[in-house]
């Protein structure tokens, strides 16, 4: 089932769902004629997009807002924070082309702080599926929840062989391991799983956790990895500040836990705009490059 098919199914099942977009219909080209006035395209107007979604929610609707992540979370940030967040309205924000997925668009389109911004809003759920399958699987729970939610859209995959169904606040164990734990989310999970395979050849046993739900967070799974493995790798296509590395650091500090952490993220910089594979290669996020960094760090322990 595709994202669009899932949206079609959900809107058929639940007449309260309204789809809104700021002229980002690429992932749902067929929905507008099917939904009629329940499909609202406001044009390139992200503030009004989010404000109108809040108004619809006040009327009992479940607005699902699909827009470019960079403009949704940043141009309209204060509307998300003030109308959706303060109002604690069940608005579902689907951000497209986040992280490396903006590919060759350049820094104007790079949402590398979206998770930092969204998780800073009280009550906001943050979901980052690893692939289109997981997104499609998670959507019914996302829509059913009474809370506001930010979702990092991903339109391809599968990234890995999934082992567990989506649940808020539950990490998925992609593979077990005793030496190193890679924590990741989004499509980079694919690289994490491949890196783990490469590391096996180096006799390093790697656990891979899919943290798909960053808020609420599976704290227990992370803390368990801290006590059971010697190195924690946080892998994300996000700025180092405010994303997974920050989330893990906060968790460790609060629990008086200490461990070796190798953060892999974009540190204080935007990434080189290029098609996805090339951008990953240039920035050092491919599986072989990750495996190399992890081996090096692990051997230093």
């Amino acid at each position, binding site marked *: 089932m595709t994202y669009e098919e899932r949206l079609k199914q959900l809107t058929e099942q639940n007449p309260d769902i309204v789809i809104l977009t700021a002229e980002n219909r690429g992932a749902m080209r067929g929905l507008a004629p099917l939904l009629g006035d329940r499909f609202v395209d406001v044009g390139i107007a992200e503030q009004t997009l989010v404000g109108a979604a809040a108004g*619809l929610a006040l009327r009992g609707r479940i607005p699902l807002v699909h827009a470019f992540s960079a403009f949704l979370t940043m141009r309209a940030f204060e509307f998300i924070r003030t109308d959706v967040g*303060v*109002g604690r309205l069940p608005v579902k924000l689907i951000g497209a082309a986040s992280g490396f997925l903006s590919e060759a668009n350049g820094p104007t389109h790079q949402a590398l702080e979206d998770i930092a911004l969204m998780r800073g809003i009280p009550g906001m759920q943050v979901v980052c599926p690893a692939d289109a399958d997981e997104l499609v699987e998670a959507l019914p729970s996302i829509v059913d929840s009474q809370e506001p939610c930010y979702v990092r859209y991903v339109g391809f995959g599968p990234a890995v062989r999934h082992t567990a169904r989506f649940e808020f606040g539950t990490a998925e164990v992609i593979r077990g391991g005793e030496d190193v734990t890679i924590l990741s989310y989004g499509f980079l999970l694919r690289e994490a799983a491949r890196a783990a395979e490469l590391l096996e050849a180096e006799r390093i046993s790697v656990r891979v956790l899919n943290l798909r739900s960053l808020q609420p967070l599976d704290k227990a799974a992370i803390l368990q990895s801290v006590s059971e493995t010697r190195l924690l790798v946080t892998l994300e296509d996000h700025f180092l500040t405010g994303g997974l590395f920050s989330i893990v650091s906060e968790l460790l500090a609060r629990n008086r836990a200490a461990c070796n952490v190798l953060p892999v993220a974009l540190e204080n910089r935007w990434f080189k705009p290029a098609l996805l594979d090339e951008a990953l290669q240039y920035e050092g996020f491919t599986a072989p490059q990750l495996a190399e960094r992890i081996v090096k760090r692990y051997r230093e322990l």
Partner: protein
Amino acid sequence: MTTEQVRELAQLALRIREHIIRMATDGGCFIGASLSCADLLAFLYKRVLRLSSENLRDRDRDYMLLSKGHDVPALYATLAELGFIDRNRLANHLKTTDFIYWHPNRAVPGVEFHSGSLGHLLSVSIGIALDIKMRRTLNRVFVLTGDGELDEGSMWEAALVAAAKRLDNLVAIVDRNEFQANFRTEDLIPLEPIEKKFEAFGWSTRRIDGHSFEQMEQAFSGLPAAAGKPTAVIADTVRGKGLPSIERRADRWFVNFTHEEIEMLLLELRGGASSALKSDPLFVR
């Protein structure tokens, strides 16, 4: 509208202004903007809105949103006078025991949504109006905005969208009191001609004296002004209306008066002499 009805409206507006003045002490309030829209709120709640404490949870009722937010003392006072909330609650202004503070909170019955960050509720109103259209009911959405608020880009973004979606169940009322915080709008960021701007964005407009109930009666009858178009009512008002000692004064935007001064102002409101105000004018921005 009979003379008696106009007299009643004037009496209601006077009581609303008294409440506002009483909120301008022990911490103070944004008195100027609250006084400028007091007549508009009295009229809208009494004569236009299909809205009462009884139908507040009804999906087919009208909506009234305060976009500028800092004029909320006028709304609290109106809600208290019309029985949405107990009058005694106004004494809770700025206390942690209630939700009555410098900007609206929807925990207070009759407050549709929180505001205070300017330029938000026209967009929120669009969402409400869209849903009303989807449900094919006849209720309407009224949103009161400031004039200074029109500096916000989001207002014009929303104005475009409201016209594009043909939201003729949406009415924006601009409280044109000519000031934004501590400046005259025309000295800082000129707004005129306001109605031409809205018209160019696809709205129908009406321009009225925002203190004349007769003109309000005309402007708000026969809505929508044009089928398929949202309506903007530009209401020319006086900031601080009712108190000559603070009317049209840039430095009487937010005030925190002494109890003595409040008593003087209450007398002034009822035709007494101009008050000799000693409290420091406050320039916040």
